[in-house]
């Protein structure tokens, strides 16, 4: 049971019109792993991430989370999209943090976190506030829980976004280039939170450009190119001894990181 992967993707395909954006992705993520998706823009890494929680549709293949097939089911008539209610329930078990934080501007930090807890998980307001307080404390923003997003810096907003996603105790956390929109001096506070999450055993799928972070925190690195997985392995293996030419070229752009 401990050996079966938490997330399993088999032969996932997606196209935008005539363009194949995902060209057969096969990936396994076991519990507690921190998997990093790296690659150039347009390689499909964000698209794949968004397919996992059905923010994007995918046309072929399957994605299975803890034994449950995400988004689609096979009937005698063929492949069918699950009813919206089922997909909504599946999304509740996955947490995602976006590049643009996407906090609700009309709610305070605390309310942003409690909304899902109360409306989706059915917790009482008091319980939800406790959970929110715990998580906001955990990301270092206990004193800001009554603040609105416009009163918070980018890094603080992103940390609230992380608290919002994690408070629901999802089975899997997705991170979509969460530091790319931040000013450089705010990046480390967010990465620290992510590192602490990883250390506490959360299973994470991270799309990122922060190679130092990936090198330090990820347990497994997947290099994507043109909708396919070109190379994967431990950070050590990929960064010290890149096998493919493309990966070497890609890493070459981060020359100040890897001397």
């Amino acid at each position, binding site marked *: 049971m401990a050996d079966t992967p938490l997330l399993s993707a088999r032969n996932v395909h997606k196209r935008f019109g005539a363009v194949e954006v995902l060209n057969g992705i096969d990936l396994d993520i076991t519990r507690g792993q921190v998997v990093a998706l790296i690659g150039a823009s347009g390689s499909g890494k964000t698209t794949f991430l968004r397919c996992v*929680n059905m*923010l994007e549709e995918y046309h072929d293949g399957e994605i299975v989370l803890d034994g449950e097939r995400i988004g689609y089911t096979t009937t005698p008539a063929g492949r069918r999209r699950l009813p*919206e*209610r089922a997909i*909504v*329930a599946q*999304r*509740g078990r*996955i*947490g*995602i943090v*976006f590049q*643009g934080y*996407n*906090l*609700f*501007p*009309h709610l305070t930090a605390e309310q942003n976190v409690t*909304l*899902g807890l109360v*409306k*989706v998980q059915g917790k009482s307001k008091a319980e939800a506030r406790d959970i929110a307080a715990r998580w906001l404390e955990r990301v270092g923003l206990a004193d800001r829980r009554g603040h*609105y997003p*416009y009163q918070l810096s980018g890094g603080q907003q992103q940390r609230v976004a992380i608290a*919002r*996603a994690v408070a*629901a105790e999802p089975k899997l956390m997705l991170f979509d280039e969460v530091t790319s929109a931040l000013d450089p001096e705010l990046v480390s506070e967010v990465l620290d939170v992510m590192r602490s999450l990883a250390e506490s055993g959360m299973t994470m799928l991270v799309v990122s450009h922060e190679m130092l972070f990936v090198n330090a925190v990820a347990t497994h690195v997947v290099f994507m190119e043109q909708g396919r997985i070109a190379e994967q392995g431990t950070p050590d293996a990929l960064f010290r001894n890149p096998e493919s030419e493309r990966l070497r070229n890609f890493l070459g752009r981060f020359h100040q990181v890897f001397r």
Partner: protein
Amino acid sequence: MDISAIMHEIYTARWTLWGGLLTTLEISAIAISAGTLAGVMIGIGLAYGPLVLRVLLRGYVDLVRGIPSLVLIFFCFYGTALLGLNLSAFAAGVFALGLFCAAHIGELTRGAVQSIPQAQTDAAKSIGLGFWRRLVYAILPQALRRVLPGWVNIAAEIVKGSTLLSLIGVVELLLATQQAIARTFLILEFYLALIVVFFIINFAISRAGALPERRMAYVRF
């Protein structure tokens, strides 16, 4: 213009005028509230509905917005007799104004809802909210704040439009005043007074609409 004569005549006619004012306010209140409720639903339908619904709603909105409100009022007034409904002029007029309000608010709401970034819908989806919950807790709170300035304009238009009901015999403030004029011949005086009254009413509406805006202005949407 003899001020004391005017004041005396206004005083004499006070009950008719007061009744007219109440009728005007009644017409406006019913048309605006019913129209706003219907309009928000229409806006949601236009933004998210299936194709057939969108086409029907679009036809309705474009039709009502493309004809003069007076034509709409006449059509409702003369037309409801056809359906065998014994609607009073008041009911027909309020119904027409309600249709008018709903169409405009529908268009306004549609625009506001569609102006909320997709990212907000993504975030709401991601915490597991279904369609109606997303609308109620994430999208509408933001969209309705954007609708507010336009809503104030439309509300003022409805109040001004209530005067058109005088042409189908509803004794609202304009017609009541004209009845007073018919008795006293103080044409300019009464009409001027009316202009002041309507100015006050509409001014009050725009001030009322500006209040929440000032409170919300610092929370940038």
